[in-house]
């Protein structure tokens, strides 16, 4: 695990009308790290992902990906730089087969922009291999809605990996999964990290977050209230107050 930051977020602010969804968030993800983002509902975790991937506009701050500022880039440009993400509510391409779903991001590098006028499809073999990694090689011809939710989440992960990303953002990958499925997912997340990819994980499931993350950031009301190893964060009084509610609330 290297020490140079893959992602540096500095004073990131996002506002929706008068609502401040993110109020000056700063964090760093080091090379090869699995970083957890936890916090109560409405803390701004998904907004943070949306700001990093260009889906919402930031009002303040900087986001550096491998020392390069990326705020203001289109989502597709950010994806091509090597930041992939999944969605909390899965968003497969409904009319495309499982295999084609993976071929879309797989083709981005060679065919993105005007290169997409090329006749050739990205290799089916490559897409098959990715689906094999997440255990979906038997369902290549199915349509996403025919898969159980656990498999749809795996499809999301396969699509993200198809971008060959340096940084993978997973938005609640364990939501809706039963225990065994969540444990399988943890194994999968570890194997992705072992390829040298850095991961950011929003997670509600504390077993998953504590079990897989090297470090955690705790968000509340759009701000970081704690940071550190899972053991350290678990005992932090500010975190306990945020989750259980303090006397002042």
């Amino acid at each position, binding site marked *: 695990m290297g020490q140079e930051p893959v992602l540096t977020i500095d004073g990131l602010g996002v506002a929706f009308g008068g609502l401040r969804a993110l109020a000056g968030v700063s964090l760093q993800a080091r090379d090869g790290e699995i970083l957890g983002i936890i916090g109560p509902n409405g803390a701004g975790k998904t907004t943070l992902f949306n700001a990093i*991937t260009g889906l919402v506009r930031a009002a303040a701050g900087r986001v550096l990906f491998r020392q390069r500022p990326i705020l203001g880039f289109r989502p*597709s*440009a950010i*994806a*091509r730089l090597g930041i992939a993400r999944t969605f909390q509510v899965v968003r497969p391409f409904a009319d495309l087969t499982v295999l084609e779903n993976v*071929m879309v991001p797989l*083709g981005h590098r060679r065919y993105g922009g005007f290169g997409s006028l090329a006749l050739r499809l990205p290799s089916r073999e490559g897409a098959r291999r990715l689906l094999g990694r997440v255990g979906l090689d038997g369902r290549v011809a199915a349509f996403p809605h025919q898969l159980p939710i656990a498999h749809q989440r795996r499809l999301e992960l396969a699509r993200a990996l198809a971008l060959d990303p340096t940084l993978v953002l997973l938005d609640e990958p364990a939501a809706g999964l039963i225990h065994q499925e969540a444990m399988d997912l943890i194994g999968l997340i570890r194997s992705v990290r072992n390829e040298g990819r850095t991961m950011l994980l929003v997670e509600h499931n504390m077993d998953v977050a504590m079990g897989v993350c090297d470090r955690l950031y705790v968000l509340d009301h759009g701000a970081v209230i704690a940071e550190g190893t899972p053991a350290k964060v678990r005992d932090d009084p500010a975190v306990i107050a945020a989750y259980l509610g303090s006397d002042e609330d």
Partner: protein
Amino acid sequence: MDPYLANLGVLVALNGLLALSVNMVTGYAGQIAFGHAAFLGIGAYASALLTTKAGLPFWAALPLAGLAGAIGGGLLGLPSLRIRGDFLAVASIGVNFVVVSIFQYTEFFGGALGIGRIPAPRFGAGPIGLQGFLLLAILLLVVGIAISWWVSASWLGLAFQALRADETAAETMGVHVPVHKLAAFAISTGLAGLGGSLYAHYLTTITPEDFGFLRSIEMFVWAAGGGFGTVRGPLAGAAILTLLPEAFRFMENYRLLVYGGVLVLVMFVEPRGLLGEGGHVWTGLARATAWVRNRFSR
């Protein structure tokens, strides 16, 4: 060859091309196009003006008409970058009215009288006859089919279908949505422009009304009735809905009634179009051919 059949053949091929044009932008890329006759018109006027006023031969005007359609579609596709769904549908109708008005109220375009005496294409010694037009129409249709197949077999087609399904997800998968939307518009309206050129030289006279809203709806219905997102569907839709009114000619005044009734019925029974993916007819046909194939492969 019977001139009646030849004329019918030209119409079927031309309408097939126009249905493929709508299919490109609505079927593959999911952008509603209720004003596509505008681009048929842009191609027709471009070709007519280039041959009558600039004195260009048809064979030079034809690709330029396609180009004019593509450029027009690229520009008028810009609203699709900001608006979606129902609002885009309304905007596309607006585009149609604007283009027709420009033809109608500009001296340069011949006003309400349009442009007449558009010369027939010349090939070898003289102008091509009716059979020449039929050949030309089939040739252009083949171009349309080839381009449709090329798109659906390439990553471009996958990108179109991805943005049709979910623009946000497509973007996060590396698909530059605006570029691909405009590409879909330009390819689509380029095909319409080619069709417009054929239309102008075939009819020899064009007027603004030829390219009005009703024509747009016709084009849309051919593709929707046949099955969006396939090549076979729009072709079948255009052929059937072009020939059907001819078959019902003996009914005189009830023709349109039957025509409209058939449309309602098709959309009711086969909402994905007659030959659309996953529809009853297509699934049945696929099952039947599989059965036959099994019989003979033993």
